[in-house]
Structures are given as C-alpha cells and as structure tokens.
C-alpha cells in the first residue's frame, strides 16, 4: 500500500477547473458574473459549491430561488456521482475550463435526486462505503468500526484531509494474510452510450488457479464491448469514456497489474 501512496495522493488531489454560469432564464436584479472554481475530482457537486450558490443568490430575489441544480450542455448533472466521474463522462474531450450552467428553478424531478442537506450527501457517501465493504469484507470491517471512525471518513472527504481520511480507509483496504485479496472487487463501469447508468457485477480479484486478475480481465468479462478483438483494451473510443470508477475508497491500485 505504501508504494501506492503517490498515486493515492494524485487521485485525491485531482482538480478540474470549472466555470459556473447562471442559466440565462433565471431572474436576476443585476447581471450575474460567471464564477470560477477548482473542483475536487473525488468530491460531490453539492458539497463543494456553497460559494457558487452564494455568489449567484446575491443577484437574485429570495422568491426566485429554489433548489440549486447543475447542467452541462443540456444534461442535468447527478450530484451523487463524483465530480471527476461526471467530467470524464461528459466533458473530457472539451477544452477547459469545464462550463457548467447553474439553475435555481424547474428542478428536473425525473432525472436528479434531491439534495436537501449536507446530511443527504453524507448518507449517500457512507452508503457507498458500506456497499463497497459488503463486497470486500462482507461488511465486517466497516461494521466493526465505531461511529467516530465513520464520521472521520466523511469529515476527511468534506474538509479535503487526505491523512484524516486514509487513517480510517486503510483498514478498509486490508485483507487477511492468507487471502490474496478482497472477496469481490467493488467497481462500477460508466458509459454514455447505454441506458443503464453503470455496470456492476461480482468479480473476484483472484482466479481459480491463483493468478491475480488484471483490469483487462475484468473489462473482458463484464464489458466485452470495450475490448477489441486484438485483445487491446480500447478506452478512448468516441462515446465511451474510460471511467472505471476507481472507487478510491475501495480499490487499491496494486490490485490491477
């Protein structure tokens, strides 16, 4: 795990330069200037955009403001997806900064989950952590932790504290010496070309013969359309984004050769 520390830090501290513009049909009392922000890839939109909200609300009347939501080129942005995932799926082939439109009206009920509070984000995040551990350890490690440890994971993410987060997360990344890995690898594969939001299946890190599986093995088995017949994994075909959500909370990069 210590070999991976540099990679883990690079993943954690990844940022996307973003320009937020208010939707033109929103009613304002003065002109709304765009707002620029570096977004953390591993976090969630509604967790890191308080300043964006305040900036635009300054030029609006209270009665014209309801739940904030974000959109990119007509696509409502799912706040419950990590920011890096949204960018990679929708905007990675466009020039930076990432241009996001901010809305305060007409919340798209059919597309987006509501985000009533920071507690909702925490609940979602912890739910993901728990599901990952259900796959890795039959939930044993996360259930044995105290509430304060769960809280530390969340606070680490919320406050951008790598060391605070990993002090607890490293326990979720361990497995018994006699095993060669987790029970199953927690992963999700996102593609823009499918109706299904993601592919998630049970996948063991070790084959029956004891060989460690690679990322290529996983893709071949669960997403064969991503792998071309010459046995190369083509991750950059148009319309298909190379997003194996690394679930930084759940996979060690050393799992994949």
């Amino acid at each position: 795990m210590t070999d991976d520390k540099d990679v883990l830090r690079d993943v954690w501290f990844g940022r996307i330069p973003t320009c937020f513009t208010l939707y033109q049909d929103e009613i304002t009392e003065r002109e709304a200037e765009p707002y620029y922000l570096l977004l953390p890839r591993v976090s969630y939109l509604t967790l890191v955009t308080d300043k964006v909200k305040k900036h635009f609300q300054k030029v609006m009347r209270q009665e014209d403001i309801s739940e904030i939501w974000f959109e990119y080129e007509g696509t409502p942005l799912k706040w419950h997806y990590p920011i890096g995932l949204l960018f990679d799926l929708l905007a990675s082939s466009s020039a930076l900064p990432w241009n996001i439109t901010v809305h305060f009206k007409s919340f798209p009920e059919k597309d987006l989950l509501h985000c009533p509070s920071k507690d909702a984000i925490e609940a979602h995040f912890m739910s993901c952590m728990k599901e990952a551990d259900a796959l890795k350890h039959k939930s044993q490690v996360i259930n044995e932790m105290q509430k304060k440890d769960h809280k530390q994971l969340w606070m680490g993410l919320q406050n951008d504290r790598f060391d605070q987060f990993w002090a607890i997360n490293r326990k979720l990344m361990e497995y018994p010496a006699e095993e060669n890995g987790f029970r199953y690898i927690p992963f999700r594969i996102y593609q823009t070309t499918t109706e299904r939001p993601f592919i998630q299946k049970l996948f063991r890190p070790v084959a029956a013969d004891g060989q460690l599986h690679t990322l290529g093995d996983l893709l071949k088995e669960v997403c064969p359309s991503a792998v071309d017949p010459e046995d190369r994994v083509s991750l950059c075909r148009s319309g298909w984004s190379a997003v194996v959500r690394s679930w930084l909370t759940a996979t060690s990069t050393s799992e994949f050769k």
Partner: protein
Amino acid sequence: MANSGLQKLSFNMEEDEFIGEKTFQHYCAEFIKHSQQIGDSWEWRPSKDCSDGYMCKIHFQIKSGSVMSHPGASTHGQTCPPMEEAFELPSDDCEVIETAAASKVIKYEYHVLYSCSYQVPVLYFRASFLDGRPLTLKDIWEGVHECYKTRLLQGPWDTITQQEHPILGQPFFVLHPCKTNEFMAPVLKNSRKINKNVNYITSWLSIVGPVVGLNLPLSYAKATSQAE
C-alpha cells in the same frame, strides 16, 4: 416444483438469508406465475442487454382511497387493509381513469431488483400523478396505514432514501437492503424447521411491501406451499 430442482439452484443452506441471483430470478418467476393466475399484474422486465432484469408492478389509486388495478386485472380475492376498497372494474375502465380528476389519480410503481452486493432483493418504488408530477416521500407516507408507520420507524428496515434506479437511472425511493438478512433469517429458519417450502420473494415482499403501501393477497402463500 420438485425438490431436486431447488437443490440445483445456488442456495447456500448455511447462509440461508442470502440468495444468489439465479435463485432470485427463479423465485420471481414462480411469484409471477401466481400473479398471472390471480390477475395481480406483476411482470418481469428484462434490462436492455437482457443480462438481468426486475419484477415490476404498477397500480393506480384515487386519493380518496379506492383502489383500481391496472386495466384488465380483477380485484377479487385481494386482502386489503381498511384504507382500500376493492371493487369490480367496469368494462370501459380506461374511461373511468380518465374521467377521475387527473390530479387525484396516483400511479404507484414497485420494482423488485437484486442487489449483488448484499445478495438480497431490494424494493424500489415511486409514485406520481397522471400528469407526471412525482409524489414526495411525505405524500407516499400519508397513504401508508398508521400501524406500518410505527413499525417502519422502529424496524430493522429503517431507512427509505431516494436513490438512482440501477437499471433505469431514474430517481426512486428505496428500502435499504443492508438489514434484510436480519429479518429474513428467522423466517427461513422457521420454515426449515417445519419443513415447509418457502418462496423467498413472497416472504420478503409480504414483510416489506405493506410498509410502503404494497399488499400481497394471501393466495401467494398458499401457492408456495402447494408448489412441490
């Protein structure tokens, strides 16, 4: 269904509160067979790539409390809690739905999916008016019988949250699956003790369903024990 058929399925007898995906699909198929016999309108919907799917039921309800099933289905033989009244549908039932004020008819959708992470079924549901406006969780709760509200707040299945449907990608309400094995274990243990065949889906749905306004006619239970 023959016992030898049951043994071929991936049903781990030691961790019997968990079921494999093939077992889940088998129990759903049996459940739907009975649903078709009594006109309860459950159906199986495969995903676009057909690798998996889910069970789905839609029913319509007028806010005053009368129940109307999906057109064509009979409502005979349903056991309903006091808040619902079953009645025979007139032959032109589509007209009946239209003439009722659109804002008062609510469409309820229940989906039963399989969670490979928790190896249990999960109940997803949503409700909307005919014009598409969704109901909030609070609205849905207002239609749930009082005794279930208390149970929901106290029971092991104590979380309903809004989540993205893993196959459709749309917002649904979900009864969280992580405690399912806790309340299913005694049910399955007991059925083993008295040597009775149990359809996991039937038992599970009869426990979690009523809590969110979904009721199962008693004939489902009888169908299971007769299916040898």
